[in-house]
């Protein structure tokens, strides 16, 4: 089975993010870049499906800058077979990314797409859904368990208040939640092998997709600092403050 895993490069979640003085972007000089953690889970799941079936191909696809090669190589070192990088320098709307991915899908014809439910940088949580809609494929978002038998797929998804089980035929789009699996790290021999794996670059303009953004970032602001706590001397005082000051009770 051929599995396509769209992969994004994002700042390491441990990085201390600074907003640029113009308020329109973040400072990138001291940022360590990683594979979006949800995409890492998607790569892991794709590799496990391939290992369970004993055959197949895991193809990574990214839409971004040349420097994203580094994260794709990491995915290849984890065990993916090859990667496609759609080169585009500027920021894109989700709809443009989904459209570019749909072109890659038309070309590659995978039977399954697994991707992160969202990227931890802008938290949009929509490309998987858009892509499924464009392709006219079933979608199962927020997967916490994936099972595949003979071109049928069962996905357990985490919803408010419980679990929901979906069953559908492939091809389909699955987006991953945090508890789906624990991604492996690249082994050293895997890193060496990854050097020789194919990493194809495709210019975004060549795919005939409208790239002009329709969304405009007006301002970025860091979350307001948390106020230091205060010690109270009695339960009565606490209850009183919760009522009069915090207005919670």
């Amino acid at each position, binding site marked *: 089975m051929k599995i396509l895993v769209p992969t994004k490069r994002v700042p390491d979640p*441990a990085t201390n993010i600074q907003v640029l003085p113009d308020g329109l972007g973040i400072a990138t000089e001291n940022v360590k870049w990683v594979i979006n953690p949800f995409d890492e889970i998607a790569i892991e799941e794709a590799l496990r499906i391939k290992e369970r079936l004993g055959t197949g191909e895991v193809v990574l696809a990214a839409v971004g800058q040349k420097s994203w090669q*580094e994260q794709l190589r990491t995915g290849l070192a984890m065990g993916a077979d090859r990667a496609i990088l759609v080169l585009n320098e500027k920021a894109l709307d989700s709809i443009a990314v989904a459209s570019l991915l749909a072109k890659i899908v038309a070309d590659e014809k995978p039977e399954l797409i697994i991707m992160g439910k969202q990227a931890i940088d802008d938290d949009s949580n929509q490309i998987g859904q858009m892509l499924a809609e464009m392709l006219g494929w079933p979608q199962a978002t927020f997967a916490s368990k994936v099972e595949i038998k003979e071109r049928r797929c069962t996905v357990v998804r985490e919803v408010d208040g419980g679990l929901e089980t979906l069953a559908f035929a492939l091809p389909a789009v699955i987006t991953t939640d945090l508890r789906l699996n624990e991604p492996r*790290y690249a*082994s*050293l021999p*895997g*890193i*060496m092998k990854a*050097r020789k794996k194919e990493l194809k670059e495709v210019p975004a303009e060549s795919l005939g997709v409208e790239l002009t953004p329709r969304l405009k970032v007006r301002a970025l602001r860091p979350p307001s600092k948390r106020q230091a706590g205060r010690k109270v001397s009695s339960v009565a005082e606490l209850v009183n403050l919760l009522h009069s000051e915090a207005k919670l009770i």
Partner: protein
Amino acid sequence: MTPALRDLDYFGLDELLAPEDKMSRDAVRQFVEKHVMPRIEHNFATESFALTLVPAMAELGIFGANLKGYGCAGMNGIAYGLIMQELEAGDSGLRSFASVQSALSMHAIYAFGAEEQKRRFLPEMAQGKILGCFGLTEPDHGSDPAGMETRARRDGDGWVLNGTKRWITNGTLADVAIVWARVDEGIAGFLVEKGKPGFSARDIKGKFSMRASVTSELIFEDVRLTDGERLPQARGLRAPLACLNEARYGIAWGAVGAARACYNCALDYAKSRRQFARPIGGYQLVQAKLVGMLTEITKAQLVCLRLGQLKNAGKLRAEQVSFAKRNNVSEALKIARSARDILGANGIVNEYPVIRHMLNLETVNTYEGTYDIHTLILGRDITGLAAFE
């Protein structure tokens, strides 16, 4: 991420690394974070090595990572150095384990073994299924291995080995000991497998340093060996010294990891610990210590990087390795002591990694050629006059 493993890259050296270097480093860092940090203080406290780490290290490809073929990863020197750095940011004992398995034992077989010996041992050593140790030091001969008393006597087609090796890392854990012994022609190396009649090993207890690593004494009483158990290409002391050179290379990098762990810990502590109504990091004396650490770590990183470039180009001289081992370890030890000082009373408890690194680095300063012996090696190199022969 634990502060010990947080990166320190004041001069943007990451830009000089190849993607595979960074990936290797990050993979080992993740391994240390997940598998080593949660248990290392326990191992140090109980004077034990965590053997359960071996399969995970093998799966990651750490053993013999810089060797080519025989199931080894074939990493370049810089990637290999960064791997050692991350292991030692966890614990010097962990890095010692990897150094002994890879740079000393596997390298000895790789460089001086017969093809048959390489095929028999190296793949399983890479998988961590066969563990090795390296016996050069003796109770009465440390800095001066040329004086060794362990002797192998010809006996028909084979050999009879007698003597004692001491301070041998992984001695009781090892399935095969690489033992250096005096023979009529000079010095030779032998592969002595566990369980050979006359071969026994026991651990040295009561260490205050490298407590999460096993250190042993090996005793050989009329141990009979075939000629096939001799490393055929190892002729003279040059052979074990070549292995030591490989290990010292890794130690030069490893020390940076231990120093970084201490620095990160001291920096965080200095920013949050308040005395006289201010964070102690706001006082000039503490800042001077932190800046001194930052400076020496950065210099050591630059030395390592250049060392790696020279190694990759096949131009590295043993004296340059001596330079790096001597400088980086002694600076790491100073940094650890300084970090210990900044932590005050908290610097002496195992809630923080600093005292453990500090105690470990005392060993690192001594083994693989003491600080002073490397001073003499460098002194000989620049003056042409040997002070110790």
